[in-house]
């Protein structure tokens, strides 16, 4: 029986020799990767494919911004623009942000954080990735077959999605397959957390990233099937003409919207909860302080999952819903902001009297808090019925959700990447390059999306190929911001690739972290632990008294 020794602090000693090869070197050849049931390899498979999808999504976004540089046609026809914003949404949402942190960091670190050797169902885990790849291939195929890329927007609203000649059926089938992938991941994580925690790891000793993964997994299991059936119904409508959503046959398109958002709203909590979990891991490490309000942060994740499942119709305030529904959903929308706010207060309190080490992960984590706050507050504004009448379907909404999905989940993804990269790859990266990527990302992001908030407030509609002259200047500002942002994305990739090729060998614990992954080699061996540890202490056990912690030895 091994008692968990507190991981060593700041990295100045060489990694101790492991008798076994690490997971990257344990076997080679492509089949050993795409047929692997090792959760760490599956995480890397997800990482590479998702980053490729992300890059494609960014490129599409840049093309859209180029088009908006001039009034009238710039580089494309209106039909192309419609296809691009649809594709941008489908790729970013279904292929990057929803799989997001769970698929990469959940897969890699959840078992390690709870002291396990793998997830409960390793083969189902591999199947999840294969479903992801299949969905991605189908989505790409929809560009080139049939009537071409769908032009409905990623929300596939009926009746247009039923009537349009573009390749909606293939695209929604791709989304269906991706949903299945998400469901299996969620199912795996719930079972893993219940069944595979190491001796001594009670629920209240679990790291907060695990709590976040748990809450997320429940949403994945209970909400995703609703989009599953909805997408199948769109296909049934297109192929069989059933009439469920077709007003000409008695169907109600607003019911489509209900079904669509019953999933797609909780889906945004699938996107943000793991991101918040990662921030909860990063802040204590670089503030050298235990997380403030552990229980509040843990249970607020559950509260967000629960409350977030009953606010969906705030996407439909202008659809013709009953006033009762508008009132109820507006009220609930205000309520769901509360647990998120609780997290923000606890994170801030964690920093108070901490000893801040401004490494790149910390820089991104602090940016997350700032950007998420803007995103969250604009969300609360939109929850007000009167405001919503004016901002619905404008750039204000677009700005809002990019603040939460990109400024929130996206920046948390960057933070997590910069935090866990040494552990996953065994290499360090250049701090200067990482900081440079931050600069371009942060200022490019705000240049693009804050401008969008203003544009939307002024009345610029979303999903419009062109714009009126009064919006022109701000559109140019936004597009310039997008170019800086894209440069930041490129720098992010370059930083990591450069680290892989030329970075210093990473020590076991470069950041002085206190959770279980920092007691393993960088990278870890296949089985993670030589022996499953017995856990005695709570996570983030920094020395509180002196205000700046040192690891106990």
């Amino acid at each position: 029986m091994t008692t968990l020794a507190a991981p060593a602090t700041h990295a100045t000693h060489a990694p101790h020799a492991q008798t076994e090869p690490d997971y990257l070197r344990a076997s080679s050849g492509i089949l050993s990767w795409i047929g692997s049931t090792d959760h760490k390899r599956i995480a890397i498979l997800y990482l590479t494919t998702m980053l490729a999808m992300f890059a494609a999504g960014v490129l599409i976004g840049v093309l859209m911004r180029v088009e908006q540089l001039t009034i009238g046609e710039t580089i494309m026809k209106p039909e192309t623009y419609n296809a691009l914003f649809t594709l941008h949404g489908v790729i970013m949402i279904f292929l990057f942000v929803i799989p997001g942190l769970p698929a990469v960091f959940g897969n890699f670190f959840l078992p390690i954080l709870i002291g396990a050797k793998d997830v409960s169902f390793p083969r189902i885990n591999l199947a999840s990735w294969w479903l992801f790849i299949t969905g991605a291939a189908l989505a790409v195929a929809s560009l080139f077959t049939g009537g071409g890329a769908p032009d409905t927007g990623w929300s596939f609203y009926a009746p247009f999605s039923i009537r349009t000649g573009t390749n909606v059926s293939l695209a929604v089938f791709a989304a269906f397959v991706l949903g299945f992938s998400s469901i299996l991941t969620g199912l795996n994580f719930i079972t893993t957390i219940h069944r595979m925690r190491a001796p001594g790891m009670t629920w209240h000793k679990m790291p907060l990233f695990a709590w976040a993964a748990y809450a997320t997994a429940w949403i994945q299991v209970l909400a995703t099937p609703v989009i599953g059936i909805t997408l199948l119904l769109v296909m049934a409508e297109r192929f069989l003409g059933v009439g469920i959503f077709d007003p000409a046959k008695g169907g109600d398109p607003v019911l489509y919207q209900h079904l669509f958002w019953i999933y797609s709203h909780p889906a945004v909590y699938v996107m943000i909860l793991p991101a918040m979990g990662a921030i909860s891991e990063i802040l204590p490490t670089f503030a050298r302080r235990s997380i403030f309000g552990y229980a509040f942060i843990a249970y607020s994740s559950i509260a967000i999952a629960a409350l977030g499942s009953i606010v969906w119709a705030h996407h439909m305030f202008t659809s013709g819903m009953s006033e009762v529904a508008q009132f109820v959903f507006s009220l609930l929308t205000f309520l769901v902001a509360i647990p998120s706010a609780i997290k923000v207060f606890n994170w801030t309190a964690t920093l108070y009297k901490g000893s801040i080490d401004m490494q790149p992960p910390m820089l991104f984590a602090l940016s997350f808090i700032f950007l998420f706050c803007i995103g969250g507050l604009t969300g609360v504004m939109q929850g007000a019925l009167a405001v919503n009448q004016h901002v619905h379907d404008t750039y204000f909404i677009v700005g809002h959700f990019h603040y939460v999905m990109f400024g929130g989940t996206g920046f948390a993804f960057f933070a997590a990447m910069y935090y866990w990269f040494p552990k996953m790859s065994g290499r360090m990266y250049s701090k200067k390059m990482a900081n440079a990527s931050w600069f371009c990302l942060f200022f490019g992001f705000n240049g693009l999306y804050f401008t969008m908030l203003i544009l939307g407030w002024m009345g610029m509609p979303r999903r419009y190929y062109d714009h009126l002259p009064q919006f022109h200047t701000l559109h140019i500002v936004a597009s310039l911001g997008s170019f800086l942002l894209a440069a930041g994305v490129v720098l992010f990739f370059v930083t990591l690739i450069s680290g892989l090729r030329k970075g210093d060998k990473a020590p076991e614990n470069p950041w002085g972290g206190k959770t279980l992954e920092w007691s393993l080699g960088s990278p870890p061996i296949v089985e993670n632990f030589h022996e499953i540890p017995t856990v005695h202490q709570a996570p983030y056990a920094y020395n509180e008294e002196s205000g700046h912690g040192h690891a106990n030895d």
Partner: protein
Amino acid sequence: MEHTTETHADHPSIGTFLAVWLALVVLTAMLVIASQVSHDLAVAAMLTLTPLKAGLVLYYFMHLKYEGVLLKAMVFVAIATLLVFIGFLFFDIGFTW
């Protein structure tokens, strides 16, 4: 590593299963009869007897009666979620049509 820790006491007898099956058939018959009598009785029967039938299948055939409280809680959460979705939808439909 971890086998099921069920004892023989957790396995219902063959007789229990037969009794449950019989109850299900009888309840089905009651449902059909109720639907012939009147519309209101049909609706009342559907709202009470149908969940009862489903409950019998869940509890005895699917072994839920003998499972731990955590699994029961999970089943409750799943069913409650669906009911909440339907219920909240009626904030819209119930006040529009």
